[in-house]
């Protein structure tokens, strides 16, 4: 139990559980399987992007171009749909090409950040505008509806295995593999090391540029996957549909206990952050909370969650500092 309490994700988990308990008393629908499927499926896109963002935030950078990047890939998918034949081959091809386009766009961010060493916020603000400008130029903002989609893709988006929609499997796959990369691979450990202390980690031989390049390219890759998820979720391509989503993504990561100054953050924490935002959105209508109070409640819970986490963290740091002093004396 003590080990669990010490886990840095514990504070978010506690708040998630408290909200779940309250909501299940208020609304009989909340704890149904159907509702949880809706919550998870509806937050697959935010979740996948937040997982990628976690790695970037751990290295003490930020990527504000994610929503624009995802939209750019989604629009490319919509464009390809007009040429692809109606067969399963098309779906496979989309799964190969979309992440690849995402990776290229992400690598573009990565090169500017790592090779030319421009601060990531500046780079990604720039690419945010480049991507969304190009998208607007090519699409003129036009919405592509499902009548132009191949039937095979529509069939894909309706797949359910054991009653669970396919998108949730996709989300789980991304979460588990990223968690594995972060925990058990050299590059994953390097990400954490650089976030902890960039100077020391380069001294022990970690290639700083390579790691930065990796996190941004990986973000692009996940942006491509998220674009498929978004297209299959809305069965439409809307060039304005994700505008502003980057803020929600960053909020979810920070809620999940990642430190914006780097070095701290984890996949389970981020998933809890996404879940917290998701159940709050879901619970507002289920709990029949008045519309105008919904924003107030959402904001209040975010502030409480972040302060609680920060106080906990500070307390732990204080303990560490204490030990240092004792050892020195």
């Amino acid at each position, binding site marked *: 139990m003590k080990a669990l309490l010490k886990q840095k994700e514990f504070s978010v988990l506690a708040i998630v559980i408290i909200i779940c308990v309250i909501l299940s008393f208020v*609304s009989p*629908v909340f704890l*149904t399987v*159907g*509702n949880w499927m*809706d919550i998870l499926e*509806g937050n697959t*896109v935010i979740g996948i992007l937040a997982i990628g963002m976690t790695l970037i935030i751990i290295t003490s950078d930020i990527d504000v171009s994610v929503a624009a990047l995802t939209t750019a890939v989604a629009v490319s998918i919509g464009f390809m749909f007009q040429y692809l034949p109606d067969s399963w081959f098309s779906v496979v091809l989309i799964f190969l090409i979309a992440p690849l386009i995402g990776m290229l766009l992400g690598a573009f961010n990565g090169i500017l950040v790592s090779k030319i060493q421009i601060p990531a916020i500046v780079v990604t603000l720039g690419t945010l505008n480049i991507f*969304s*400008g190009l998208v*607007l130029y090519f*699409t*003129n*903002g*036009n*919405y592509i*509806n*499902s*009548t132009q989609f191949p039937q095979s893709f529509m069939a894909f988006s309706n797949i359910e295995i054991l009653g669970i929609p396919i998108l949730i499997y996709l989300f789980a796959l991304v979460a588990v593999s990223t968690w594995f990369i972060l925990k058990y691979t050299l590059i994953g450990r390097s990400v954490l090391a650089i976030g902890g202390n960039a100077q020391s980690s380069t001294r022990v031989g970690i290639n700083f540029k390579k790691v930065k390049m990796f996190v941004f390219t990986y973000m692009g890759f996940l942006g491509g996957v998220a674009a498929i998820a*978004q297209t299959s*979720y*809305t*069965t*439409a391509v*809307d*060039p*304005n*549909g994700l*505008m*502003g989503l980057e803020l929600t993504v960053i909020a979810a990561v920070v809620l999940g206990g990642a430190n914006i100054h780097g070095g701290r953050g984890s996949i389970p924490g981020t998933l809890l952050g996404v879940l917290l935002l998701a159940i709050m*959105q*879901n619970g507002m*209508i*289920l709990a*029949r909370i*008045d*519309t*105008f109070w919904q924003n107030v409640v959402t904001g209040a819970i975010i502030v409480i969650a972040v302060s609680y986490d920060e106080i906990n963290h500070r307390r732990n740091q204080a303990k560490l500092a204490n030990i240092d002093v004792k050892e020195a004396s």
Partner: protein
Amino acid sequence: MRKLWLSLVVVLGLILAAGCVSEESAGSGGDEEADGAEETDNTSEEGNTEEAESDDELEIAVVPKLVGIPYFNASETGAEQAGEDLGVNVEYTGPTEADAAAQVKVIEDLISQDVDAIAVAPNDPASVEPVLKKAKENDIHVMDWDTPADKELVDLSVKQVDDEEFGRHMAEKLVEAMGTEEGEIAILTGGLSAANLNSWIDAAQSELDENYPDIEIVSDKIPTDEKQQVAYQKTLDLLKSYPDLKGVLAVSTPAPLGAAQAVQEKGLQDEVSVVGSALPTDSEPFLEDGSLDTAVLWNPEQLGYLTVALGKMLAEGEMPEDGQEIEGVGEITVEDDGKTVIMAPPQDYTKENASEFDF
């Protein structure tokens, strides 16, 4: 210490000077670009000799809330058509995001181009006020379209529909689609602060209160951030939370699509009716299987056309009259104040007619 201050002041001065210079050069560069774009526009669109001597042609600027969304693209098509038909130069330009400050800059540029009339669909009526005043001081005719600006300031105000009539009409359509005059309904909106959406919803609510007292609105209007997927999620939540829900009124163009998608996915086409304001091409897949019953809107192409036509009248010193026939648009209504023009009654898009439109 004094040296330090001195050097600081010098540096500050240099920065300011550099700022001014670069602003100036950026400004003039921007203008050149804009001119260049205009020229290419003219040649590519018209290419005939008439257009070459466009100097004494009237220049009408139409500023949408933003460019690059289907709705304002459709009104652009209409505005340009009017320019061709009526022999005026139409400049259709606006910010790429629905941003009040960016829109003000666009209008500033148009003032320096010395156009004859500016028609603006303000993102925020208060923030365009000073720049519209400036336009008037420069003898430019000022009008608003799509969304009203400050009434005192504009010479003409072009409205697509009468807000009251539009809201009431949507409510009527919803009751019609539900086939019953009692039951629970929910209202989705694009955003809580959008003035025109709010006035439609208010009108719809008073229609329901007055004529259908047995219809119960289950919650306050629910905001959907102008996004389809948000409207979809909220409708899913509504369907779970209120299992007896009979109808959804979705105001703002993406909201009906999301609401209809939820109804479609749950297979509730016969139990839950959805009526809202959407463009016909976007709503087609949902109109087909009845998950969206009726999309109510006006014709945005005609709105663009009418704006340019009235802009031309204004620049020539005429004012429109009540019941006047505008070619390509139809009979318009002018309200008692003499300057608020209402285009036409709301238009219904249904399964039967949606495929006839290309916006």
